[in-house]
């Protein structure tokens, strides 16, 4: 079925009002619930849950092992994953090491580990990232300031289906004395996607 090419000539704001009115009229949504969900997104702590997961994994080897074995049950131990996108079959966490670096992309849409990182940043959804991360990932990473040593194996995870991926970055040097809270503050969203080192 082809799409109607005349669709949507009004502004997106006007079109959104129209489609919302129709969905409300047909009883599929309630505007108050939409208001509440938007507010929840806006106050969303975003990647903070993922940062906490990383800090726990750095400080608790048993938790780290469970996390790498099966991500979703492990993050539930920390009270996360309750508002997980129900269309996700598994959360898989890939660990960066001295010899392996991991990078996450979704070339077909913009699948992202919402349960731990919140909503994806604009660049992750951009055609430039989606097109290049699988074909020239080293060049792309270099442009973003991460010069990967030639001997480091690069693994790119194209989230094309029902599995979502998060990177467990390497713990930075000189953080031995920090507690979980202080470590959490050191973890960036982009390091958990794999475009940054800490």
């Amino acid at each position, binding site marked *: 079925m082809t799409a109607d090419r005349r669709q949507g000539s009004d502004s997106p704001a006007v079109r959104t009002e129209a489609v919302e009115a129709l*969905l409300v009229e047909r009883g*599929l949504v309630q505007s108050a619930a939409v208001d509440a969900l938007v507010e929840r997104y806006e106050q969303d702590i975003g990647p903070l849950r993922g940062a906490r997961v990383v800090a726990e994994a750095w400080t608790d080897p048993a938790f780290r092992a469970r996390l790498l074995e099966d991500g979703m049950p492990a993050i539930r131990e920390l009270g996360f994953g309750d508002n997980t996108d129900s269309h996700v079959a598994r959360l898989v966490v890939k660990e960066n090491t001295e010899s392996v670096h991991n990078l996450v992309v979704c070339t*077909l*849409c913009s699948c992202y580990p919402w349960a731990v990182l919140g909503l994806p940043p*604009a660049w992750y959804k951009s055609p430039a990232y989606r097109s290049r991360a699988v074909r020239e990932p*080293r*060049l792309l990473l270099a442009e*973003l300031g991460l010069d990967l040593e030639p001997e480091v194996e690069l693994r790119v995870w194209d989230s*094309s289906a029902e*599995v979502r991926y998060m990177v467990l970055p390497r713990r930075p040097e000189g953080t031995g004395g920090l507690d979980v809270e202080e470590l959490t503050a050191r973890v960036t969203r982009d390091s958990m996607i794999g475009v940054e080192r800490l």
Partner: protein
Amino acid sequence: MNGIHDMGGMHGFGAVDRRSDEALFPEAWQGRVCALAGYAMGAGLANIDAFRHAIERMPPERYLADGYYGRWLYALETLARERLAGDALPERPDVGSVTREVDREPRFAVGDPVRTWNRHPQGHTRLPGYARDRRGVIADIHPACVYPDTNADGRGESPEYLYTVAFESRELWGEEAEAGATVYIDLFEPYLEALA
């Protein structure tokens, strides 16, 4: 379908503009669309695969021009137009898990060499074009899941095992591929054939 959404490997989109200071929803309607889509799917407007396919069916110039939530808005309009003409809702509410119990074993084991099929379906599929007719190795086996290819257009869930398949960069991109890179792609069993 061979659409504009299938972006892996394309040239011409330039540098990645990575900003750290962006708002979650720069315009208010974007947040509304994000929430509306979730509720409308949950209430039975369409399942997630039909929603993704509605995005893929956009005219390609609109896909590029409208942005991420603009595409969601377009898909919501398309699905509302196509599916809300009658009184009944077109789908069961799309909530809960996508994994399914099936009474057969996975065809492949970790380490098995496989080749992806060379098919160009007009409908929805989750085999990226750049990985079509390519040799890889099974790296992981996941539970059977609802099969997006049939679920997207009303042919049913027909669950299939899902695998992570490892492809050497050179197999995907030829002589000029970057060294030392492997691309892992999650692929459903029908996309794969055993390599002797």
